[in-house]
């Protein structure tokens, strides 16, 4: 036992892997034993082989790239617009009065329901998808920025004011850095939303991307490709989420986290 307790992280890691390995093993055995239709429910190993094959023959790169750049562009636009708007709402009274009710009233609307309208406005291809991702991501970014900027301790603001800092400079040099932790929480949420909306809009209105790849696999009854695509989508979502987390650590190294 002492050798085990000396590597607690290794042990913790192993106990986590075991249940997953058991599930995958059971899946493989059940499908190999022929208890289920392999056409509908293929063995894990065949899904992994297909997943690798999609990368080897290169057919996944184009859809992967399409989904990725749409998600990132929509997210980037939402940050570029949402952060200034949220800061303004947090610190300027009329902006709060005007925008806060608009955001809280339209918050419960599932933005995905706007796909047909956006297709009508921006066409079937990338623009309508990027705009929808932008719209959906705008909400978490604005709301988290707004709450961050509103909840600042006035002491910082007073001390900057007493040194004669102008209003615009105040937003940029004092309010923005102090709100960054909260803004980043919003970005973490928005990253997940961006991938989800990209995939759903591609499933609904085509135009390439991993979403359309999945629907096409479904139409051909190709479960292996559908699974492999799902795996790719999940990995992208996870990678972007971890990337945002890593970036947060890099940008907020000076920030003392509360928890």
């Amino acid at each position, binding site marked *: 036992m002492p050798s085990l307790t000396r590597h607690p992280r290794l042990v913790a890691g192993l106990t986590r892997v075991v249940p*997953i390995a058991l599930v995958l093993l059971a899946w493989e055995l059940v499908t190999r034993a022929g208890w289920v239709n392999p056409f509908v429910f293929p063995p894990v190993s065949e899904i992994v082989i297909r997943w690798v094959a999609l990368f080897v023959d290169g057919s996944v790169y184009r859809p992967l790239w399409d989904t990725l750049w749409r998600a990132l562009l929509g997210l980037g636009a939402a940050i570029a617009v949402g952060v200034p708007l949220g800061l303004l709402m947090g610190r300027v009274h009329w902006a709060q009065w005007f*925008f806060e009710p608009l955001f809280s009233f339209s918050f419960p609307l599932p933005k995905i329901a706007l796909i047909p309208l956006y297709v009508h406005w921006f066409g079937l291809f990338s623009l309508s998808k990027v705009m929808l991702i932008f719209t959906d991501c705008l909400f978490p970014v604005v709301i988290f920025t707004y709450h961050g900027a509103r909840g600042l301790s006035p002491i910082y603001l007073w001390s900057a004011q007493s040194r004669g800092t102008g209003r615009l400079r105040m937003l940029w040099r004092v309010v923005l850095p102090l709100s960054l932790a909260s803004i980043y929480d919003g970005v973490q949420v928005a990253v997940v939303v961006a991938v989800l909306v990209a995939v759903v809009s591609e499933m609904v209105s085509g135009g390439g991307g991993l979403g359309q790849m999945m629907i096409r696999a479904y139409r051909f009854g190709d479960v292996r490709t559908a699974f492999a695509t799902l795996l790719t989508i999940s990995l992208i979502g996870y990678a972007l989420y971890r990337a945002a987390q890593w970036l947060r650590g890099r940008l907020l190294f000076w920030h003392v986290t509360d928890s």
Partner: protein
Amino acid sequence: MRMSSGWAGGLSRLLPLTMVLAAWQAASISGVLPKTVLPSFGDVAVALGALVRSGEIIPHTLASFARAGAGFLIAVAGGIALGILMARVRVVERAVEPILLLIYPVPKPALIPLFMIWLGIGDFSKVAVIALACLLPVVIAAFNGARSVDDMLLWSARARGTSERRLLWRVVLPAALPQIAAGVRTAIAIAIIVLVSSEFISAETGLGYLIFSYGGVGADDAMLAVVIYLAVLGYLLDRFYLAGLRRLMAWHAFAH
């Protein structure tokens, strides 16, 4: 500075929305915003009135409600049970937590095509995806809630000879309710998003189908009417849930 005080506060909050709608209507009437781009607010309101009065929207509302409701209820019942078991029984936590972590990063609507292969394009696949998508926030909330139950409560119940099973039901569950309530609220929002996505992809009934088919024939006023109807429905659902919660939890400090 506090604006949400009574009726005056409510009106002050409605004013920006009214201004936007009035500007929309004015832009449509003056021709600045062509109706081919966006029908006027008046047209959308008229279309909504017609949809409700003719009763056309009712079977679609019921179909959507049944799908989302079935998936949601399965997720709430299963999620609370699983979350509490995970928090109190070590083996369950060890076995289930890694699997939940594996499912967590999967964007749930992306499962719709796979579930359609397994369960057909009917209601089963939609309910299953909605249930799975709603399950995670409920499990996590129930797990966190049940794990942070005050030990004093457990000790005092045990000291009076409460059996372990009864303890889960009578002590742990009520104590975890505030956290569970927050997870369930997230699940309501998720249910609506996954519902609409699945009805966009394949359905012959439901509000998502209605939006999609009106959009497809260029009936933008009716399409927007259903979108607004859906938004209002989602908003009311959330309000009713919060109001019901406040009554249910009147005993709890969390409700003030």
